[in-house]
């Protein structure tokens, strides 16, 4: 049982994690987010909801995902043992489906008949299109024009799954603009539409419910490492875009003070270059997309463009709970450049026969440093939150290879 005011007990009744989070939405949407909160509270008390989630996780997604000791990477880096939490083996190839299933089941409980989602790399869009196909729900996915171009395989997958793809050209044509457009659709179609947000951000209760659905990752990892090693790990590592895979891994360990929590942001061309997506390392608190959190912004409070080779990390904000964990000092946030992520992508592929998505490749790129810091006898779990098949074309281009 957690202590009162313990780190794991946030958010408060206002949807806040310390001074972050909240419900910064247009009045039209307020009744909807309040309804969602009430429905989520009811669902949590309903054993049938839990049972249906569990059944789908087991038989549709393929959970639990393995916890794999990466022996050759461990040997290569030298130091603590590196375990990979294999969420890339989930149905649809990433952790995203954990959350989508939960939200679509909530949508069904609420009698919503149409699903919308935003997507960056396309993984959340694919997961949403997949679950909508499974339940026979019409699905519209908003995707920045630039991302439609660099994630063609996922765009086609979504079309095959029956989703309508809306390329978004407003603003900068990336993930944040896709989210704006999804919010515009939602505010227009309030009666029948459920907005499935892909990361642990947005207005309360989204950061909480996305975290809760993704926490299956951390709960499994905890049980698995206790069984394998008989003790908790020394550190957890995960990449951070909006931060849903990281918070899912971290949350069940928040009260374990001896377990270091390490998030890795996308530094693009470098945090000092002005072309990055490291909101915690290079941003300031602000208000966007329904929550108060760290944002990339200019001196006038305009949102700055993010940059990352990974479309899934290319977002100028971060989930509010990470902002809170950073300010309280409970979690550490490192960053990794495009080039380092590309190197780690290749290293993991060669040494382990595992093609990581570019997103977790960012975390892998910082693993060596952490493993050596902790040293031999230590244990680190890194969330392999997605597989890299979707990235082979952009990696080829970055390496100057014709495919």
């Amino acid at each position, binding site marked *: 049982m957690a202590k009162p005011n313990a780190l794991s007990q946030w958010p408060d009744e206002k949807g806040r994690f310390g001074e972050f989070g909240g419900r910064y*939405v*247009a009045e039209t949407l307020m009744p909807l987010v309040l309804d969602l909160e009430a429905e989520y509270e009811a669902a949590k008390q309903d054993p049938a909801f839990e049972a249906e989630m569990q059944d789908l996780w087991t038989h549709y997604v393929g959970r639990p995902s393995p916890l794999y000791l990466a022996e050759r990477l461990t040997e290569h880096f030298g130091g603590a043992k590196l375990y990979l939490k294999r969420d890339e083996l989930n149905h649809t190839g990433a952790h995203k489906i954990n959350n989508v299933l939960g939200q679509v089941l909530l949508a069904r409980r609420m009698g919503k008949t149409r699903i919308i989602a935003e997507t960056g790399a396309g993984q959340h869009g694919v997961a949403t299109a997949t679950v909508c196909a499974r339940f026979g729900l019409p699905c519209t996915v908003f995707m920045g024009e630039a991302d439609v171009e660099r994630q063609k395989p996922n765009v086609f997958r979504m079309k095959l799954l029956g989703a309508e793809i809306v390329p978004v050209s407003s603003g900068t044509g990336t993930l944040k603009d896709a989210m704006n457009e999804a919010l515009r659709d939602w505010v227009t179609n309030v009666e029948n539409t459920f907005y499935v947000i892909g990361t642990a951000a947005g207005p309360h209760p989204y950061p909480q419910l996305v975290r809760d659905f993704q926490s299956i990752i951390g709960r499994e990892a905890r049980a698995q490492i206790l069984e394998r090693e008989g003790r908790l790990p020394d550190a957890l590592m995960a990449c951070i875009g909006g931060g849903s895979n990281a918070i899912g891994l971290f949350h069940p360990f928040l009260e374990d003070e001896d377990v270091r929590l390490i998030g890795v942001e996308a530094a693009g061309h470098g945090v000092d270059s002005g072309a990055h997506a490291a909101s915690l390392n290079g941003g300031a608190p602000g208000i966007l997309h329904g929550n108060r959190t760290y944002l990339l912004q200019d001196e006038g409070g305009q949102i700055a463009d993010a940059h990352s080779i990974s479309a899934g990390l290319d977002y100028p904000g971060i989930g509010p709970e990470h902002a809170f964990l950073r300010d309280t000092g409970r979690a550490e946030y490192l960053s990794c450049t495009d080039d380092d992520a590309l190197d780690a992508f290749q290293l993991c592929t060669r040494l382990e026969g595992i093609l990581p998505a570019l997103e977790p490749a960012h975390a892998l790129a910082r693993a060596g440093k952490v493993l050596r810091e902790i040293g031999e006898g230590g244990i680190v779990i890194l969330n392999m939150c997605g597989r890299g098949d979707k990235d082979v074309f952009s990696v080829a281009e970055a390496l100057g290879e014709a495919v």
Partner: protein
Amino acid sequence: MPTSRITARFDKARTQGRAALVAYIMAGDPDLETSYRNLIALRDNGADIIEIGAPFTDPMADGPSIQRAGQRSLRAGTQLGDVLALAARFRAEDSDTPLILMGYANPVHHMGYTSFAAAAGEAGIDGVITVDLPPEEDHELREALQVRDISVIRLATPTTSDKRLQIVADGASGFVYFVSVTGVTGAGAARPAEIASKIARAREVAGLPVAVGFGVRTGDQAAEMAEIADGVVVGSAFVDHNGEAAVTGDFEAAPKKIGALAKELSEAIAKARRA
């Protein structure tokens, strides 16, 4: 507290047996000089209250017209301080027309609520609408603005229940902005019959004038809304004249067209309740 310019203006319109025309333009679209001339054109052609839009990179409640206006403004480098300077310039010329600053939370939050409230007071701003600060999140800004006698204009929408209307009313001042449709700015117009009772209810609960906006473009639509509301807000239709000028390059024409539209709308509103 002296009678605010907003209250005085609604009182004047009511005395004249008509609704007030509330006109919106985006500051700095495409530059601050044109905006100033647009403000004067609105004032000279019957706009009772003027909403000055502050541009934001991520205007999630706006449709294409105002999105593009914001992008034109941002390309010209307009920041919140420039918007306030524009208001101050107008205020130096006109001490009666209420000015409402309308925008999104982040630029205001970034400036700091207290600093913003002080600067807005200096600039002669009478009310502030921050689209993404619902009642649950606006207390810090509200307290800072109250010190400066600046109204917090709250929004009510078709999704606002009676129970919620009480929350919206509690702390609202100036007027209530009734969003006529679920949707973004510039979306299709509501049918007056569908919203008349909600507007009456908002007026009763808040004890404030109610201005209705979103989707009103023409004199006929404005006249219909003027029969059921205390004010009629028109935004995208004005902004579109700047959009047109952005294509033709003829920004000299924009204030004339904006003035002509204000005239058409204000005349239609003036006649509405006499028809």
